[in-house]
């Protein structure tokens, strides 16, 4: 017990010192400008890793390390997410009790549309993610919603992602102050330190992509959701975006929020928007 408090006070004071040292930048009144943010975000990674092809950023840790990339290519020969993909395809065409199917809930029958999710729903005034839309489709057709972190949701999103493979991420921010606020919310969440380890998403995925935390190579934040959902060897199973966010939280000793909490929807909105233009590569295989 004793060491834990000293550790926490140490890390907190370090953070405060770090904050004090960085010279406060002269910042114009903070007008939210997603396009400028996205440009700056992408340029940061393009300059930090000049020899990584832009579209390769979506391959996460494998764009950062060749030994890992070879292991990934060997897995891609016959990837472990094949079963989830087949299950998703089958589920997608199996009608609900009322005879309808997922195709009736989505534009273009749900095929090749993953790159437009999440989108901002001006009626609801909130971000709607693919996982949320799938469960709403189930409920609208009298079916029980799936858990956001279990295999069924991962299989469905795996199939929808597969039908969009190669298409450029294409997230829109309507001219609606609530959409700009959701984007800003997501950005703030991404950069906010949390948990007793006092890390933000950026501490790992902006400041040290390509470096190791023990055996794992950290993925760059740019395009980090393009391969979702992912089959993780660590979990020897599929992982949805919700599951990944929640486990990242607990890794820094922060208590995860409920799946599809507003913060998660907004940070997904932010991360997807700044990756506009990069190809969808889901479902993915990861360490």
């Amino acid at each position: 017990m004793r060491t834990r408090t000293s550790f926490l006070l140490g890390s907190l004071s370090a953070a405060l010192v770090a904050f004090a040292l960085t010279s406060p930048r002269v910042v114009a009144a903070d007008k939210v400008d997603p396009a400028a943010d996205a440009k700056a975000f992408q340029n940061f990674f393009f300059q930090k890793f000049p020899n990584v092809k832009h579209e390769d950023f979506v391959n996460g840790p494998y764009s950062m390390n060749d030994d890992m990339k070879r292991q990934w290519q060997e897995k891609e020969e016959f990837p472990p997410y094949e079963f989830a993909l087949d299950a998703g395809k089958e589920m997608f065409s199996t009608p609900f009790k009322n005879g309808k199917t997922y195709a009736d809930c989505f534009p273009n029958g749900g095929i090749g549309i993953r790159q437009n999710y999440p989108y901002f729903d001006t009626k609801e005034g909130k971000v709607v993610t693919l996982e949320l839309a799938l469960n709403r489709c189930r409920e609208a057709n009298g079916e029980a919603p799936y858990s956001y972190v279990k295999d069924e949701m991962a299989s469905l999103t795996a199939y929808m992602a597969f039908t969009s493979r190669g298409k450029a991420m294409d997230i829109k921010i309507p001219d609606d102050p609530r959409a700009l606020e959701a984007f800003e919310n997501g950005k703030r969440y991404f950069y906010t330190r949390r948990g007793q380890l006092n890390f933000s998403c950026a501490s790992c995925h902006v400041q040290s992509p390509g470096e190791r935390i023990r055996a794992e190579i950290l993925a760059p934040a740019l395009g980090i959701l393009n391969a979702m959902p992912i089959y993780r060897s660590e979990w020897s199973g599929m992982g949805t975006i919700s599951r990944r966010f929640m486990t990242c939280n607990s890794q820094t000793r922060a208590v995860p929020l409920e799946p599809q909490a507003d913060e998660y929807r907004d940070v997904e909105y932010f991360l997807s928007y700044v990756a506009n233009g990069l190809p969808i590569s889901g479902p993915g295989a990861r360490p």
Partner: protein
Amino acid sequence: MKRSLTLAILLLLSFAPSARAASEADYKAAYAAAEAASKEAAGMRNQWTTTVSTLAAARKAGDGGDFDRAVAASKEAEALAKASVVQATSEKEAWKAMEIR
């Protein structure tokens, strides 16, 4: 023979009145303070997993009657909860320092 004698003395000392064992009331007070701080942290949606586990350990020790450990754990949980509140408050502005511009 000599060893068991020293052990006996040591045992006696631990019950010496000078080191006052925590009472149930001490535990209840310390636990309530920890729980309040933890609620505040949860209210800011910035709870730490270690706060939750330490609070649980405090309760378990308290229920088991080990009030010394229960008070220590409650104090630890309170410190953790308070630190997470400080973190959430300071991060309201601090995050901008790390933002890619």
